[in-house]
């Protein structure tokens, strides 16, 4: 049992996402930053799709049983308060390592110094019911999560599941989980303007129907992720609007599709996107690039860089390795 004593933002339960749900009009859901999600579970030596928490800012928890956690995805100070022989001691940790808790320990996560969201992996995952093979919940869908699609808010308590470690297959020493991690995901090398993040996108869907000028504007200017972004979609701010085209019928949306609505400000669709959308799509941001995009703060600039699907597939597997 673990209790969230205080949180600034709702905390979402994430896992590998729903399966065979799209034909019922149900969203796929899943983690925003899949690289960080996998890493948290790898650190804990468990299945990479084990459910975890996605937090966006300051929060604190009390562990009512002993458990191990691993926090990944960004940089924030993690403070652990433990009572041993009637004396309270506190110590702080960096992300990307396993932290072992005993019953009664309080841990809190401070303001994010880097990135937009963290993944809190828990050995055994979170024990809530499965719907469409997933524990994710979306408020508007009214099922999943802590119940009725609800995320975790201050005061919520929830059970953790049974820990089933996976064998390390000789890759890591058995005491690895107590060491601070040097585990780093491979991030594709940047070649463009210094200090500007490049976000890969694969031109597809209606890309060919956009004007040459629209396609030029899409890849030639600096953009920012707007504050009005959520798990459904990341609203992108571009100084010059991208001239859109007319599309009459809705279409099925893949993870990371970039919609261009009539106002010319792109929207990159996230895991909680609705299954279908009516705006024209200029391309898709592959998973490894989406993991970078969701971590950009509103004042960080980036550019979209076109890559072909073969390159995207190669980078995807490099990142997964």
């Amino acid at each position, binding site marked *: 049992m673990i209790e969230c004593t205080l949180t600034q933002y709702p905390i979402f339960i994430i896992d590998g*996402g*729903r*399966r*065979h*749900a*799209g*034909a*019922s*009009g*149900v969203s*796929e859901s899943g983690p925003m930053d899949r690289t960080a999600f996998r890493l948290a579970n790898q650190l804990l030596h468990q299945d990479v799709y084990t459910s975890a928490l996605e937090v966006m800012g300051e929060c604190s928890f009390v562990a009512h049983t002993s458990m191990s956690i691993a926090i990944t995805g960004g940089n924030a100070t993690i403070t652990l308060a433990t009572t041993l022989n009637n004396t309270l001691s506190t110590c702080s940790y960096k992300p990307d390592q396993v932290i072992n808790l005993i019953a009664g320990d309080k841990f809190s996560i401070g303001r994010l110094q880097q990135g937009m969201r963290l993944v809190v992996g828990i050995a055994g995952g979170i024990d809530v019911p499965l*719907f469409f093979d997933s524990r994710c919940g979306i408020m*508007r*869908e*009214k*099922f999943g999560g802590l119940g009725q699609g609800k995320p975790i808010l201050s005061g919520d308590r929830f059970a953790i599941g049974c820990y089933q470690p996976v064998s390390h297959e000789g890759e890591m020493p058995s005491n690895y989980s107590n060491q601070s991690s040097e585990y780093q995901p491979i991030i594709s090398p940047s070649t463009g303007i210094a200090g500007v993040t490049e976000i890969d996108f*694969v031109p*597809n*869907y209606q890309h060919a129907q956009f004007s040459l000028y629209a396609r030029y504007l899409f890849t030639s200017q600096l953009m920012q992720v707007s504050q009005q972004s959520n798990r459904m979609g990341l609203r992108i701010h571009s100084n010059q609007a991208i001239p859109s085209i007319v599309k009459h*019928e*809705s*279409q*099925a*949306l*893949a*993870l*990371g*599709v970039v919609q261009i609505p009539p106002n010319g400000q792109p929207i990159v669709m996230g895991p909680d996107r*609705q*299954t*279908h*959308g009516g705006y024209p799509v200029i391309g*898709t941001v*592959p*998973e490894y690039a989406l993991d970078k995009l969701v971590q950009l703060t509103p004042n960080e600039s980036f550019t979209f860089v076109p890559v072909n*699907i073969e390159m*995207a*597939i190669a980078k*995807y*597997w490099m990142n*997964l390795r």
Partner: protein
Amino acid sequence: MTHLVKQKIVVQWVTPTTLHCEFGELDCTVNKALLIGRCRLYLYEHMAIKLADIVPGFNELLVQFIPSEIDYFADLHQVERLLKQYAMDSSATTSNTASVSTQGTGKRGITHIPVDFGMDYDLVDVAQRLTLSRTDLIAQFCAIEFSVILNGFMPGFIYLSGLPDKFHLPRLATPRLKVPAGAVAIADAYCGIYPQCSPGGWHILGVTEHVLFDIDRSTPASFVTGDIIQFYPLTPVITPILTAKIAPKITSSKEASSD
């Protein structure tokens, strides 16, 4: 009968785990929703173990793979081959149940959904715009066999095709803030049913108690792409003349759906 053979089905990887299969312009005798729905089941039949999901669209299938099961070239070719093979097979045998022709739905069952036309939302307004009487509108609407295109944008919201041209109306200028759950509504070329209370800009003709989505059922969504639906009015609005027009139809199609 060879129109489907020439069908353009374009299959390509759009993300490292998703195949996008676009169905091009179809001959007007082909029910696209039915073809896409059947193709989806056909893919599941042949490669279920590799799949995470198949999302049907108006003109496409989005095939999501389990990452560890992907074999890029083989899967692309297999999906392409299966879809083309299915399209060809079904065009060659239009007489059997696998037919995707719009002429008759073969032996497939029709689901009849009761609709209460008693509460007046847009029924009178739509009847006026179509220069029909209220009862004629209900009678004509209930004579249509709709095909389910997809559950979309929210769990259990079904888009239905088959609305005749004369029923095509643009959406309401000002969307309603509150459309009741079960509202049967039309807009543009489509008919739809709202699974839950939400805002919406479609013309509401009536309300049904049929539950379109219930997460506690073994199959939460009532309908899948390709299902056939026909509405029938609940008693209050039925005049004797109307009953005479509709009743035989209901009984005859119920017999058809019982086998």
